[in-house]
């Protein structure tokens, strides 16, 4: 796991390897498409989704409305674009929370391995693992009411132990390396060693896990929005579009198809990218698989 070391002089090689890894390229393209759609939605969407046109409701896909329209006559394609914005933002910030809090905790636990501090960090992690993001969201929502921010917090909290465990495990094996011992003989303290020798050598691992948690975050956000614990109207989100579609599944099944496909392709893209990165960073693993 910790052999995912890429020497800086090989960075060009990494780029070349990336270009030669089809799964990574497909994943990258898919991800970029949705990222582009999300960014574009800030300045332009085919239709204004705040305008309700009841006369135009429940249209099936056509040249004017590529994905059709919903029960209020809103353009689904435009809503999917804006939904990408919400999904990506929520998942990305949640991954950020996980990394910013989890990684230092994991590094700290590893640097103080075997002490009470390590034990406390690990037990706290176990505890958080007992609360799936949904339960966390239910608790927070029960008290503060539903909102996108609460979804971010719930998913973010769940990401903390993921990154804490990962970085602790990887860091522990690096602490056994002779170069860390050499740094200690050179008088360097645990914090400096963690920053200089440990963190740079686990970044590849963190990037791979980051893409995976990103995709899980998108799934979780969709689920929370679907049960009404996430983004609130009027902002469209994929999950809520699906919950609205469900009530009309008999008369307008197309409402359920496009937001769902948007979720699938975004998550697929991120996962392919994560798998591809793993192969690129660790050619040994690729040979073994």
């Amino acid at each position, binding site marked *: 796991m910790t052999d995912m070391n890429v020497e800086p002089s090989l960075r060009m090689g990494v780029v070349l390897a990336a270009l030669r890894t089809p799964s990574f390229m497909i994943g990258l393209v898919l991800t970029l498409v949705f990222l582009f759609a999300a960014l574009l939605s800030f300045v332009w969407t085919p239709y204004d989704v705040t305008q309700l046109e009841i006369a135009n409701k429940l249209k099936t896909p056509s040249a004017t409305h590529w994905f059709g329209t919903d029960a209020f006559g809103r353009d689904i394609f435009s809503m999917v674009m804006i939904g990408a914005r919400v999904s990506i933002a929520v998942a990305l910030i949640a991954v950020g929370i996980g990394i910013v809090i989890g990684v230092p905790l994991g590094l700290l636990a590893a640097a103080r391995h075997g002490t009470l501090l390590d034990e406390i960090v690990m037990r706290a992690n176990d505890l958080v*693992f007992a609360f799936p993001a949904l339960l966390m969201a*239910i608790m927070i929502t*029960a*008290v503060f009411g539903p909102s996108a921010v609460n979804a971010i917090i719930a998913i973010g909290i769940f990401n903390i132990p993921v990154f804490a465990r990962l970085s602790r495990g990887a860091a522990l094996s690096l602490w056994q390396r002779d170069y860390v011992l050499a740094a200690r003989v050179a008088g360097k303290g645990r914090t400096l060693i963690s920053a200089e020798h440990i963190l740079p050598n686990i970044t590849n691992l963190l990037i791979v896990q980051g893409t995976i948690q990103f995709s899980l975050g998108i799934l979780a956000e*969709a689920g929370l929005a*679907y*049960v009404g614990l996430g983004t609130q109207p009027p902002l469209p989100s994929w999950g809520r579009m699906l*919950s609205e579609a*469900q009530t009309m599944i008999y008369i307008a099944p197309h409402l359920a198809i496009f937001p769902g496909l948007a979720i699938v392709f975004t998550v697929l893209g991120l996962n392919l990218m994560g798998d591809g990165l793993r192969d690129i960073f660790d050619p040994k693993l690729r040979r073994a698989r």
Partner: protein
Amino acid sequence: MLPYMIKRLVSLTISLMAASLVIFFVIEVVPGDPASFMLGLNASPETVAALRDSLGLNAPAPMRYWQWITGLVQGEFGISYTYKVPVSELIADRFWVSMPLSVYALMLSTAIAFPVGVIAAARRNSPTDVSIMGVTQLGVAVPNFWFAMLLVLLFSITLRWFSAGGFPGWEAGFFACMKALTLPAIALALPQASILARVMRSSLLDTLGEDFVRTARAKGLTRRQALWRHALRNALIPVLTIIGLQFSFLLAGAIIIENVFFLPGLGRLVFQSITQRDLIVVKSVIFLLVFAVILVTFIVDVTYAIVDPRLRRARA
């Protein structure tokens, strides 16, 4: 084995205590006054005082926590504020929908994932393996509730094999209930099975590269024999971890899926309670679900010891 079990039991109890503290803190301490929170802004001070009195909220927080915990141990969850019935009654019926659904899904997911993962690993890089990996890659990306909607679209609306939702109640008979739970369980299980199959495959490939598998081959075992007799059991150890984690995802997933199929489970109860601000029900349901997750972690730990003799040693 016994010291290991005791150690796991101690850590199970500690986890439960800590989890209950977190739940208590978030639900009863963070909102300030739960009584006025539950009644909303328009409640008169007298009604708030009355509710606070009836909920025993005048007692200091540590006291209330103690009462809650001692109640839980005796199976007393308190009285629902909206339904005016004991929460334990409310939960009991719904528990017997959510729990069977999760277990059903877990069994389905494991039953599918094991053979698929083993076949993919045994025929690494073959067309079979490549297509399995492709399908599971897709399966991992599908949100279970959307998959549930597609299943309804196909099997209930188009083919009319299953009803689109609802639950007949256990008094309608085992098979009627299982039939009602089948589509939801499939919707929950397939995405999870994709993850599990991928873990199974990669874990098995890892173990196939171990020295002891080479030793087995040098003894004259065929590739297949080495896989079944030596690699598989060792490969199970990481797979078990994932199964344990999956249960918590399945439980959470079940809460969502209940909405798609109109199943009267804990999910429906908890969402209704959130709208009605019935914190007592919310608190109890969350504790119950967290309890289930922690219990499954414990079971997984014990299973480890059965699979791995190194753990059975008295290393308490």
